[in-house]
C-alpha cells in the first residue's frame, strides 16, 4: 500500500529568519492517526501551512495519493481532500450563521444548494451541534466554535484531517467529546498538540518536531518532552 | 487613493490643508479620550481591509472603504484618516506630507457624506444592505471626483489624468457598493449598535 501523504525533503524559512525546516521527511498511511509535538515556535503550524500550499515558494515535494502536487489544479484537489482545523477556530468561522459557514465549502466545490444543505445538516448532526445552526458563530463558546469549525471542514468530506491544537481552550467535557468524535472518525489524522492526555486518546503514533526535522517517537520516550 | 507629493499646485494644497485641519479639530473634539482605542483599532481594521486586493477580471482593485468608515466613525473619520495616511507615508512612502491635507479631504469628506446618507437609509427602515451600498458607492464616487478636481485645479496639463481617474473608478464604485452592502448587512445582523442603530 502506498502512503496517503508524503512530505519529502521539505526546506523552508520565513524571509529574514533562520530556517524552520531543513530537509524534513514525513509520511502517513490512510487511517493512521498521528500526533506531532514540539515547542512553541518549532514550526508545527508552519508544517501544516506547507502541506496545504499556503507558504508560496518552498523547497521539497508534497505527494498526495501518490501524485506530486505541482499545478494549481493539483493544489485545488489537495485542498478539497485535506481538511485543516486552525489553531484558532475564530479565524475559520466568518459567516453570519454557523449553517452558512458549513455551507461555504460545499457550495464552493460546486455542489447544488440542496446537496450542500443536506450534507451540512448531516455533519452538524454527527457532531451534535445542529441546535446551533442558526446562531452567529461569535456567540458560541470556545468548544462550540471548535466543533463548528470542524463541521465546516468535514462538510467538504476530506480524507485527511490536519488538526492544529484541537483541544486548546476546551473544558474537559468538550475535550472528551471531541476526542471521542475524532477517535471514531473514519479519517486519517495528523494533529499538533501540547495536550498529551488528549492526544493520547486519539493518536497511535507520535513525532517530535525540533531543529527543522520530524523524528518519530517510540513508546514511552515521548513522556517528559 | 492618494496623490503623490510634488504633483499638485499651491492652491489645492492650501484648501486641502485648511479643510483637513478643520475636520481633524472637529473630530478630535468629538472623540472622548476613552474612545481612542476604539477609533484606533477600527481605523487599523480599515487600513488593513484596504490592503486586500480583489481580482476583477484581469485587474486587481483595492477597496477604499471610506463610506463604511464614515458609517462607523462619523466625524472621527478625519483623525482616523490622518493617522492611516500618515502611516502610509511612514511604511510605504505613499502619498506625502505636504499633500496629506488633500489626501485626507478626498477620503474623509466623501466617507462622511456617504456614511451619513447610508445611516439615513438604514434608520428609515430600508434594508441595511441598501444603506451599505449607498455609503460605499457614494464614498468612492465623491473620492474620485475630489481627486480629479484637485488635479484639474493644478493645471490644464492634468485634465486627461483627471478624466482617467474618474474612468478608472467606475468599476471600483460598483465593487464597493456591492461589498459595502454585504458588510453592512453582516454587521447589522451581528452587532447593530456598531452602525449607530438599535436592534429592531
Amino acid at each position, binding site marked *: 500500500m502506498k502512503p496517503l501523504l508524503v512530505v519529502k525533503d521539505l526546506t523552508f524559512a520565513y524571509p529574514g529568519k533562520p530556517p524552520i525546516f531543513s530537509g524534513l521527511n514525513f509520511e502517513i498511511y490512510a487511517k493512521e492517526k498521528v500526533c506531532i509535538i514540539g515547542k512553541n515556535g518549532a514550526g508545527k503550524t508552519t508544517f501544516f501551512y506547507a502541506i496545504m500550499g499556503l507558504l508560496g515558494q518552498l523547497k521539497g515535494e508534497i505527494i498526495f495519493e501518490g501524485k506530486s502536487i505541482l499545478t494549481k489544479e493539483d493544489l485545488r484537489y489537495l485542498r478539497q481532500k485535506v481538511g485543516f482545523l486552525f489553531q484558532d477556530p475564530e479565524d475559520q468561522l466568518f459567516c453570519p450563521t454557523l449553517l452558512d459557514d458549513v455551507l461555504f465549502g460545499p457550495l464552493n466545490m460546486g455542489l447544488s444548494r440542496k446537496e450542500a444543505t443536506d450534507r451540512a445538516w448531516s455533519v452538524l448532526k454527527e457532531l451534535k451541534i445542529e441546535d446551533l445552526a442558526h446562531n452567529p458563530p461569535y456567540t458560541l463558546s470556545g468548544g462550540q466554535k471548535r466543533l463548528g469549525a470542524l463541521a465546516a471542514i468535514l462538510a467538504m468530506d476530506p480524507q485527511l484531517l490536519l488538526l492544529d491544537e484541537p483541544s486548546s481552550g476546551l473544558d474537559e467535557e468538550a475535550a472528551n467529546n471531541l476526542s471521542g468524535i475524532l477517535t471514531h472518525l473514519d479519517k486519517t489524522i495528523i494533529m499538533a498538540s501540547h495536550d498529551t492526555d488528549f492526544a493520547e486518546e486519539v493518536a497511535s503514533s507520535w513525532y517530535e518536531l525540533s531543529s527543522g526535522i520530524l523524528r518519530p517517537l517510540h513508546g514511552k520516550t515521548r513522556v517528559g518532552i | 487613493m492618494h496623490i503623490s507629493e510634488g504633483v499638485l499646485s499651491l492652491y489645492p494644497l492650501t484648501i486641502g490643508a485648511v479643510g483637513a485641519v478643520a475636520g481633524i479639530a472637529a473630530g478630535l473634539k468629538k472623540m472622548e479620550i476613552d474612545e481612542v482605542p476604539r477609533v484606533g483599532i477600527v481605523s487599523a481594521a480599515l487600513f488593513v481591509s484596504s490592503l486586500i486586493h480583489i481580482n476583477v477580471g484581469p485587474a486587481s482593485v483595492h*477597496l477604499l472603504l471610506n463610506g463604511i468608515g464614515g458609517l462607523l466613525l462619523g466625524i472621527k473619520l478625519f483623525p482616523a484618516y490622518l493617522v492611516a495616511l500618515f502611516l502610509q507615508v511612514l511604511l510605504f512612502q505613499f502619498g506625502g506630507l505636504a499633500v496629506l491635507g488633500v489626501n485626507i479631504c478626498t477620503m474623509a469628506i466623501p466617507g462622511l457624506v456617504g456614511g451619513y446618507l447610508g445611516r439615513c437609509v438604514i434608520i428609515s427602515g430600508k434594508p441595511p444592505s441598501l444603506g451599505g451600498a449607498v455609503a460605499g458607492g457614494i464614498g468612492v464616487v465623491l473620492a474620485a471626483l475630489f481627486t480629479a478636481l484637485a488635479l484639474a485645479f493644478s493645471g490644464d496639463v492634468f485634465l486627461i489624468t483627471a478624466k482617467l481617474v474618474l474612468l478608472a473608478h467606475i468599476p471600483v464604485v460598483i465593487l464597493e457598493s456591492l461589498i459595502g452592502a454585504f458588510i453592512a448587512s453582516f454587521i447589522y445582523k451581528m452587532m447593530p449598535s456598531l452602525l449607530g442603530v438599535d436592534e429592531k
Partner: protein
Amino acid sequence: MGMINVSYINYHSKPKGSFLERIPPYVKLLLTFSVALCVALLNSLMAQIFLLMYSIALVGLSGVPVKRLLKRLMAVDGFVLMLWLTLPFSSEEGVATATLITIRIHAAVLAFMALLQTTSMPEILQALCQLRFPSKLVALLHFTYRYIHVLAEEASRIHRSMALRGFEPSLNLRTFRAYGYLIGMLLLRSFARSQRVYNAMLLRGFNGTYTFLTFKSRLSRPDFLKLAVLYALLVGCLMV
C-alpha cells in the same frame, strides 16, 4: 490572490548606527516636513534638481539598504509611468511638467526613506509629543499602528481559511459576499478587541493621560554641526 503580506508592514527594523539614525526624532520630522514643502512648492527645475541631490545625500547619510530603496522606487514609478503616458499628450508643457514631477516625486520618496526609515515608531510618537501634537492624536496613531499587525494577521488567517474551503475569487455575487463577510468579521472582532484593550488600560490605572514615551536622545557637537549644515543646505535651495 488577495492575500495581505504582513511582513510588508513591519517597521521596527531600522538601520543602526548611521548619522540620521542618531539625530533627535523631532528634528528629523521637522526636516522631513521642510523638504516635503520645498518639493511641493518650488517650481523651478533647478531648485528641484538641487532637492533631488539633497535627498540622495540624505540617503547616503541614512544607511538605508539600497535594495529596499530600489524596491520602493519601483512601486512609485508605476505612477510616474502613468504620468508620462498621459501628460505629454495634454498640452505643450506636458513633457516639461512630467519631467519636473518625476524629479519631485523621486526627491520626496528618497527624503522620506532616508529620514523616516531611520526613525522607529516609538521615536516618532515621542517626536510628535515634543512638537505638541494633541495627545489624543498621538495615542490614536499609536493604537492604529499597534493593532495593524494583529488585524492583518487575523485577516490573512480568515482569508486562508476561505481559500482552503475552495473559495476562488471571480466576478460573482458569492465572491463579493465572501469579501463582505471577511471585512465585516474583521471590523466586528476589532471592535470587541478595542473593548478589551480599553478594559486593560482601565485596570492599570488609566486616567486620561497617555504617558508611555521613554526614549531619550542627545546630540553630540559634531552631529549638531552636521545638522546645521543640512538645514543651511535646504535654505540654500530656496535661493537657487
